[in-house]
């Protein structure tokens, strides 16, 4: 600040004031930059500590585990020796999420198209609003609705699927009992992620440039052909990222699964049979009875869930990045 050049000395008072201002500005700038950069760094620290702490506590449990962490079909960390493994949880989590995606993504794309291209205009705007609101309904509400309303409703469907599609093996119901199965969990998860997938897909479909759609129309395309030629190609990456968002939620969903599933530590391809488990559901179910070691074992399973969601998110991000390069030119 102590400038010795004669040039900016002459009119003394205003310059002096200005200097004072700019030096306080400089301090202010430094403080402000420090604060905001600090927040960014704090975020990185949090992420790093999540990974470190979970891994550390998980290693405490796994080193004492008498079974194989990945292949054991049991969860008994309180036993002597302790035995626990995530095979059943991994299977249940993946299967229920796949069912959820298989139902939710096509239906969500359908609803998104309905709102963006098919619904009467007076219906479309309020409908979009309602879908956005539904995306905010807490999962525990889906959970009790699933357990108290959906499960009894699906029993008839289960019997019917067993009767006509039992030959497919996966729809063969070999155990009697209520519909507290992985299949039901998949349906509930599908209903849960439907609003968010719909909402994101609709946004993307609405962004399709009008002139792309008119190009198809002017060639004599029907409404469906307009969608096939210009809307779907444009919206594909958006739909993929919306689906990944939904998948991330389905993988980590705790309460809706914990309320609906009747858990058991078996892997069965008969999806209509009650039983099975998911990472999050198992943590919720086993937490109350677990001692410190048991909690570490649960943390170990949580770590696997964490890695799983990281992989899904990473894949989504890569897909989006690649599509951007390809389709940006004329948009």
């Amino acid at each position: 600040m102590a400038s010795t050049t004669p040039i900016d000395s002459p009119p003394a008072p205003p310059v002096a004031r200005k200097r004072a201002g700019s030096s306080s500005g400089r301090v202010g700038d430094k403080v402000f930059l420090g604060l905001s950069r600090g927040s960014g760094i704090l975020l990185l620290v949090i992420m790093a500590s999540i990974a470190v702490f979970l891994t550390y506590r998980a290693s405490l449990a796994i080193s004492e585990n008498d079974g194989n962490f990945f292949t054991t079909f049991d969860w008994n960390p309180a036993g002597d020796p302790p035995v626990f493994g995530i095979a059943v949880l991994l299977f249940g989590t993946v299967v229920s999420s796949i069912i959820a995606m298989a139902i939710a993504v096509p239906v969500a794309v359908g609803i998104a198209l309905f709102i963006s291209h098919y619904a009467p205009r007076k219906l479309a705007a309020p409908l979009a609003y309602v879908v956005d609101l539904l995306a905010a309904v807490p999962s525990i509400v889906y959970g009790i609705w699933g357990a108290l309303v959906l499960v009894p409703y699906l029993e008839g469907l289960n019997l019917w699927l067993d009767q006509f599609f039992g030959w497919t093996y996966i729809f063969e119901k070999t155990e009697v009992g209520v519909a507290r199965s992985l299949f039901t969990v998949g349906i509930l998860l599908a209903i849960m992620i439907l609003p968010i997938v719909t909402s994101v897909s609709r946004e993307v479909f609405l962004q399709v440039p009008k002139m792309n759609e008119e190009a198809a129309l002017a060639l004599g395309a029907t409404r469906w052909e307009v969608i096939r030629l210009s809307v779907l190609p444009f919206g594909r990456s958006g739909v993929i990222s919306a689906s990944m968002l939904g998948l991330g939620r389905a993988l980590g969903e705790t309460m809706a699964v914990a309320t609906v599933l009747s858990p058991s530590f078996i892997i069965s391809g008969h999806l209509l049979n009650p039983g099975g488990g998911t990472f999050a559901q198992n943590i919720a179910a086993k937490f109350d009875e677990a001692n410190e070691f048991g909690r570490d074992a649960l943390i170990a399973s949580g770590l696997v869930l964490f890695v799983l969601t990281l992989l899904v998110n990473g894949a989504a991000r890569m897909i989006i990045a690649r599509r951007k390069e390809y389709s940006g030119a004329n948009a």
Partner: protein
Amino acid sequence: MAKRIDVSGLSAYYGSHLAIEDISMTVEPRSVTAFIGPSGCGKSTFLRTLNRMHEVTPGGRVEGKVLLDDENLYGANVDPVTVRRTVGMVFQRPNPFPTMSIFDNVAAGLKLNGSYKKSQLPEIVEKSLRGANLWNEVKDRLNKPGSGLSGGQQQRLCIARAIAVEPDVLLMDEPCSALDPISTLAIEDLIGELKERFTIVIVTHNMQQAARVSDRTAFFNLAAVGKPGKLVEIDDTERIFSNPSVQATEDYISGRFG
């Protein structure tokens, strides 16, 4: 192929707003008819009523008759999809399908209709691209995305796409307004060639362009902002630009307004 268009008593609305009122005219086959007039006079809206694209706009509707060789486009059992298949259109800004290759862009219309032989496709695509004076520039990169071409090339690609389905009429909505002068010249030359085969209607802001490319010119005007646009007169281009019968046309041509 080229067909005559007979419009009688046509009005178009956006919701309750009357955009163009009571227009009647005849467009001769195998000729270029240019629509000129100040901004907002409804010439583009009128053009879009000729292939039922107007009703795609929310709230858009049309009253009156448009006969394409004696068949009313707005008749009871007429399918707008068939109409647009028969009356092709080129837009203000070039709009190739961004995710498709050049080849697929040209073939898009044919593939929609389904009844083509796969072996014929390359031949039709080449013929259309030649027809649009684009073949020599793109023949080595037919599988590259159409969005990689320059603006003028993209517009000619859109023309190739439109003529590949052999329409009866080709509508052009200010096809050169987004292009540089050299590309504009290329498109104007192309229009001169295409009129041997098609009935062409072109909307343009540029009066010199209308004078250069068209056989007949229609002048549209509106009484005031918010009032509906009307057809003032339609005549041979030469007469419109030398000796129009209405004073407003002469004022507009000579640059006194608009």
